[in-house]
């Protein structure tokens, strides 16, 4: 098993900017400019969400600070507590210890624990997602807003904000649509309809669809089917997985024993398989035709993060305890498209990410979040307690392997909070990193012949690409 010593860190005082033809380029951060190396990300929006751009969050408790506590009779207290906090509050008043067991969760701390974003509760950027077809980026911030940036400098930045949208956990663009964005938050899901032509900076909630079920809270992960007709959501305190027909507000539920909640759902890019994991030992891979599942379990802890390869047959995952990245080959039931006959019987450990010190930079540790690029050639990994982002090459021939590629470091005081890949990037792959300072960095991984190829020929030749990249990785 390979380990993190294969990585190289940029020199002191430099930050990683891009990777061109397999070679990482870094520059001193005072005059770092990625456009000096490549023009592929020139048109992307420059985003830095500083603290003073955030809108204040109203918690609803401001009024309380104005009043002083007084002594009233116990019965009166109870009535008041009942009006403000309901029955649970009253029981809490009677017997504080007993209620903690019944109280289902305290939402923010629970979300913080299971979230894909690092330091979810404090960092500015909670989640970023690229539109599948156009260069448009949705950014969820800690003030419960979603901003949509597009490359055009003159265009406005729509701000999605509403009272119902509290504690955003995940966002997802709807496939086969230009306008729709699903936002998963503490109490449910809101599917916004953001018209790119309209000049409204704050789209109204009346154009949105609000999906919620009382027992399905807090929604921590959502995924659209690749055809855009179904939406799947999982909640940390509900072991039922809901499949939504969004427009009709209808659900079917997938329910299997194991765990008291689910924390992650990922639809394979081909649409045939679905990955879900519980907050216990088990995770499942569903077949989306019959909705039967394969049950897997980890030895200890729970699956923290996972991602599919582009072909939908390989699943990479990592648990929240061990610093090891595993791979699973998933059986493909469809007769004519299967290259792989059976699922692997056990997960293959691919990479040991134990925390090490490379030239004074701490790297590795348990994984927080991992994403693979749409072409399935690269894997980006965000760690729980170190601030660098590690980029790997995924090699399938002769066997599934992860090969260290580069380390992306930020400014000295910055920590990475969340990562995402650009969905449509002809020249290779482009990793997008949200740093704790509110800065969003693009880290393009460019292959120059691909870039020139895509310039001359609008439709990129995928067969050429695959032959090229395999040879380049195997050398």
């Amino acid at each position: 098993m390979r380990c993190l010593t294969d990585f190289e860190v940029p020199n002191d005082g430099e930050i990683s900017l891009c990777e061109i033809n397999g070679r990482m380029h870094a520059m001193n951060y005072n005059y770092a400019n990625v456009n000096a190396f490549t023009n592929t990300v020139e048109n992307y929006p420059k985003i830095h969400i500083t603290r003073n751009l955030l809108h204040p969050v109203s918690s609803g408790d401001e009024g309380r600070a104005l009043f002083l506590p007084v002594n009233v009779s116990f019965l009166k207290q109870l009535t008041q507590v009942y009006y403000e906090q309901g029955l649970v509050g009253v029981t809490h008043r009677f017997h504080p210890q007993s209620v903690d067991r019944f109280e289902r969760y305290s939402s923010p701390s629970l979300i913080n624990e299971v979230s894909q974003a690092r330091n979810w509760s404090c960092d500015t950027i909670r989640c970023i997602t690229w539109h599948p077809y156009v260069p448009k980026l949705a950014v969820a911030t800690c003030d419960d807003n979603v901003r949509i940036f597009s490359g055009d400098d003159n265009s406005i930045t729509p701000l999605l904000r509403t009272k119902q949208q509290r504690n955003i956990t995940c966002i997802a663009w709807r496939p086969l649509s230009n306008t729709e964005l699903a936002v998963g938050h503490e109490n449910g899901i809101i599917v916004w309809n953001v018209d790119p032509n309209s000049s409204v900076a704050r789209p109204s909630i009346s154009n949105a669809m609000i999906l919620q079920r009382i027992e399905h809270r807090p929604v921590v992960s959502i995924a659209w089917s690749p055809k855009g007709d179904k939406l799947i959501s999982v909640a940390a305190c509900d072991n039922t997985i809901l499949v939504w027909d969004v427009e009709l507000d209808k659900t079917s539920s997938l329910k299997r024993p194991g765990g008291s909640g689910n924390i992650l759902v990922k639809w394979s890019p081909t649409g045939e398989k679905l990955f879900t994991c519980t907050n216990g030992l088990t995770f499942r891979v569903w077949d989306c035709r019959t909705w039967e599942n394969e049950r897997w379990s980890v030895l200890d802890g729970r699956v923290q993060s996972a991602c599919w390869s582009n072909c939908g047959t390989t699943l990479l995952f990592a648990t929240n305890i061990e610093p090891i990245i595993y791979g699973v080959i998933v059986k493909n039931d469809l007769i004519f498209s299967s290259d792989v006959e059976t699922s692997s019987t056990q997960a293959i450990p691919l990479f040991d990410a134990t925390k090490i010190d490379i030239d004074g930079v701490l790297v590795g540790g348990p994984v927080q979040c991992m994403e693979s690029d749409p072409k399935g050639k690269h894997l980006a990994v965000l760690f729980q307690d170190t601030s660098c982002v590690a980029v790997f090459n995924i090699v399938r021939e002769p066997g599934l392997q992860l090969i260290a590629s580069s380390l992306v470091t930020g400014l000295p005081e910055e920590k990475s909070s969340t990562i995402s890949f650009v969905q449509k990037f002809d020249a290779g792959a482009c990793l997008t990193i949200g740093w704790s300072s509110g800065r969003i960095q693009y880290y393009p991984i460019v292959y120059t012949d691909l870039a020139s190829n895509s310039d001359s020929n609008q439709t990129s030749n995928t067969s050429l690409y695959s032959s090229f990249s395999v040879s380049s990785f195997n050398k």
Partner: protein
Amino acid sequence: MALPVAGRRSVPECDGQNYCLNEGAFFLIISGFWTGLYYFLKVYISEKHLTFPVIYQRKVLQLKARILPLLKESFALSLWPTFYFTILYWCWGGDLTYNFNRTFGILENAKESMPSLIYLHLWMFGAIYYFNMSLMRFFFNLFLTEPVEFPLFKETPESLCLQESITLQDLPIVQSLACLDLHSLAQWSKSRRQAFFSLSQPGGHPHNWNSLIENVLKLLNEYTEVLNKSVESPELSKPVQVPAVPPCAIRPPDRFRNLRNMCLTPPDPGTIDVEISHSPLPGFGLPSVLAEKLKQKFQAVLNVIKMLLGINFLFGELPQASVQKCLANGHIIVWISQGVSVLACASIAEDRYGIVQKDLPGIITTLQGLDRLNKMPALARKMAGYDDFNYRMKGAVTSAVKRSLFNLCMTFSAYMKEFPLGKDVVLYLQTVYKA
């Protein structure tokens, strides 16, 4: 249901008289009639259509997932008839027992009063009745909505195949299942898709695809026509507009189906269609024209009378009703439009003979026609409200059609310019898909 209770107390002490009425049992038996009637009126008549689940799982799993909610629902729903019955009995129960006693010659029993627990019994029996009925409906739904794989070829002349079943409006469930099958086959089954992209032997004609696309377009066009009608019907005097099909959209008569348009260009403006009309002989023409005119006038007067007297309102088909009927069948359109678009998109890689090409402009134009749904004034949110089924179904249909068009535009984006499409269609596509 009330029998065990009645049986237990069938011989109450009635001051030595032989027969007297046990009011509790009587109350429960009558309540049984009432609950049945109430359910029949409230649920059975009004909720007729089957609902397809979002995803179809094994039956046991569906039953397991549904049984507890059903039980809860039954208890909640049966509260109302129980409540109504209690009030009704309180008002007219006395008369009822009196009449009953008189009819059967039963002696009055003044002593016995109903136990208070009987209301709980009443509620429970109501709930059990509701639960039974909803379980029956659930099973009915479960077994009928099970996806079926239709054969793609006709084995015997009587047997049904997928292509035919799509337009089978007399058997809505078969039609729905066929549409669902088309949707899933387009998405999942390469081998079954191949049946449409192959030529039949002997002859080498794409019969399978032709019959499929003919039926699909027919269904979609009929749907659009009904929508058009319901938009226009308030003004009766207006002539019925033919749905705007651009001249170049390819909808050849069925006998030309097997000819492929190789160049896919709009008809050459140089050629002029010559309409040959046989002019009727002058001597016989005039009276028939007159008769026709008179008939039209008569019809117009009749229409006005009907409208003025409200006959139309009472007996005719309301425009709103046809829209509602359309929307009740919305799921069919959702599946069909997605199925056909996925199938057409798959053709770019799998269709070796270019069978699908010639029908693409037709498919796009027809799908665009469904946008009419957005122009229904009755379905604007202000009129309908959030929770209205029609409003939501409208959203589902329009969104599915948009996604289908988007998929087609994205897959064929390089060739879009080559398709002969009407101007309004192109404009519409630009709003849906901006590259």
